[in-house]
């Protein structure tokens, strides 16, 4: 082999090795799951220390939002459907904050409840017009009704 | 001393060492040269001439591959240079305006590094070469403490250490004193007489005991004198 050919091959071999190591390591990394925020279950399990700044994510439990009359203080329960966590917050909630929607709160645990310094709404990827949403909700309500009535409703629609 | 290792496979002169064909280069919308053709044969000492700004340095840098903004073809021993650049670089020695001598290192350290890129040398070789260019005893002097001419001489010591066939020298005489000029002239003559080739730009009239070819960039033509 000519020397310059050999040198070129050395470079290519070097690059190929580097790239395969990089790909291997990133595949390994991707196979690990990541926790972006703590769930109420993890908090309940005592994975979080008091005074440690964390981020908690969950759904706002239906009917749990209590707004103060004379201040911006608000309290609600975040749930992952197996455990609930009481979140307290002083401040303006985003538009999309509503019951049954996802929420992410930053702050720290204090006396068994979560003092949030910031609350962010996590909106889903579904865009629907108001009417479509109403129709879907109606359909869902219909499905919840006894079978006979559902049939009737389906005929009617 | 530099002559023994240069063997000349093209003694017939059929294939020139370096051939430039239809070179064209413009800079800042100004044509430096166009349609430039010339050959460099083994045993040639070619002086590139031209007024200031005529593109002498640019031409040398194009030939070495330091400047890629040109059109035209370049052949080394009949093969287009880009096809075997490493083979070409192995037989090339270029000394530019900037001498390539690090001021923090000593002469020996500088030469040891630049030779490690080309061919292995011993400390003894380095001292011999330095002595030949008039720097006997300066091997371990830090280059910052040398004069410009002395730094240039350190750089010239490469001519003796590197077994290159083609020397491309850009204004190598500028900072040299009379004695240095004479040393360099004799080095050039020895090299071409041993079958090497030299391309050199200088405004200094060369006094060498061999034929001198001239390439004039103002008249765009090569001629023998």
């Amino acid at each position: 082999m000519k020397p310059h050919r050999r040198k070129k091959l050395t470079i290519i071999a070097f690059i190929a090795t580097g790239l395969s190591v990089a790909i291997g390591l990133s595949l390994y990394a991707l196979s690990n799951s990541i926790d972006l925020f703590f769930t109420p279950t993890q908090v309940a399990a005592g994975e979080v220390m008091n005074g440690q700044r964390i981020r908690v994510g969950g759904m706002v439990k239906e009917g749990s939002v209590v707004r103060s009359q004379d201040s911006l203080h608000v309290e609600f329960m975040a749930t992952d459907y197996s455990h609930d966590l009481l979140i307290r917050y002083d401040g303006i909630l985003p538009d999309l904050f509503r019951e049954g929607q996802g929420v992410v709160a930053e702050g720290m645990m204090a006396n068994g409840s979560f003092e949030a310094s910031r609350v962010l709404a996590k909106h889903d990827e579904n865009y629907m017009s108001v009417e479509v949403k109403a129709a879907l909700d109606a359909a869902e309500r219909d499905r919840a009704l006894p079978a006979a009535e559902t049939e009737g409703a389906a005929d009617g629609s | 001393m530099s002559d023994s290792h240069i063997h000349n496979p093209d003694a017939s002169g059929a294939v020139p060492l370096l051939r430039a064909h239809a070179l064209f280069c413009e800079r800042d919308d100004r044509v430096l040269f166009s349609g430039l053709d010339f050959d460099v044969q083994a045993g040639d000492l070619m002086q590139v001439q031209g007024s200031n700004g005529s593109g002498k340095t640019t031409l040398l840098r194009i030939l070495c591959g330091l400047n890629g903004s040109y059109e035209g073809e370049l052949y080394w021993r009949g093969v287009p240079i880009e096809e075997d650049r490493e083979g070409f670089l192995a037989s090339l020695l270029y000394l530019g305006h900037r001498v390539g001598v690090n001021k923090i290192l000593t002469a020996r350290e500088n030469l040891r590094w630049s030779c490690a890129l080309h061919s292995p040398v011993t400390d003894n070789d380095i001292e011999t070469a330095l002595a030949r260019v008039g720097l006997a005893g300066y091997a371990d002097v830090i280059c910052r403490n040398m004069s410009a001419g002395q730094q240039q001489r350190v750089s010239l010591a490469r001519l003796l250490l590197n077994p290159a066939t083609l020397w491309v020298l850009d204004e190598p005489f500028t900072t040299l004193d009379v004695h240095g000029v004479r040393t360099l002239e004799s080095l050039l003559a020895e090299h071409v007489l041993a079958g090497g080739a030299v391309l050199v730009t200088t405004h200094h009239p060369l006094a060498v005991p061999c034929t001198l070819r001239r390439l004039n960039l103002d008249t765009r033509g090569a001629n023998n004198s």
Partner: protein
Amino acid sequence: MWQWFFRLGSPKWFYELSGRWLPWLVVAMTVLLTIGIVWALLFVPADYQQGDTIRIMYVHVPVASISLACFPLMAVAGVITLVWKMKLADMVAKCAAPIGAWFTAVALATGAIWGQPIWGTWWAWDARLTSMLIQFFLLIGVIALRSAIESPDAAARACALLSVVGAINVPIIKYSVEWWNTLHQPASSFSMAEDSPFGPEIWVPLVIMIFAVYLFFVISLILSTRTEILVRERRSQWVVDLVAADKTQGA
């Protein structure tokens, strides 16, 4: 194929072709833009969660998709510049950088305006905004490098190289930023299937707007590339003839 490819590299050819196409592109853009804007502002139903805020999507999404396409475009032009030394590719890359930077800036601004009612803050360090911001910095870097290097030839190749390096990094940056913070909603799929979360009354105007904004980008790019061609080729015969013809026409 190759012949066509290299003919494309001729600035003169591009100048003449683009001159013929330009009026049609402008007409198409005007029509699409008018339909898209009127439809999006007046006829698209309000979203069940976001209300009328959703309408900013019709600007944000097309503009953001252009900004994302800009770096790959510059990288492709960069590869062509480095490998085939095609002048036109560099001119396009040079013109695409500032336009792309403007689009990125608009995407960031509309993202912020959208974010204010939705997230409750003008700026959130969410994955998409952050990676968009960093991409903006990368673009600024390319523009800064271009203006710092005096020799146009060296600038062309240096910027081409930086664009390629940047384009390799964009996905890495995007991934790492997403990994760092995934607060934004995942990318919605634009499927036309019936079970798509988008009803056709939502996505049809969006598609129209995307086409309109793409056309706007292409037209801006062509216009500024034409200027660049004239400047760089000012010494070539065809430009001299063109200017002379223009003068006699004017007189």
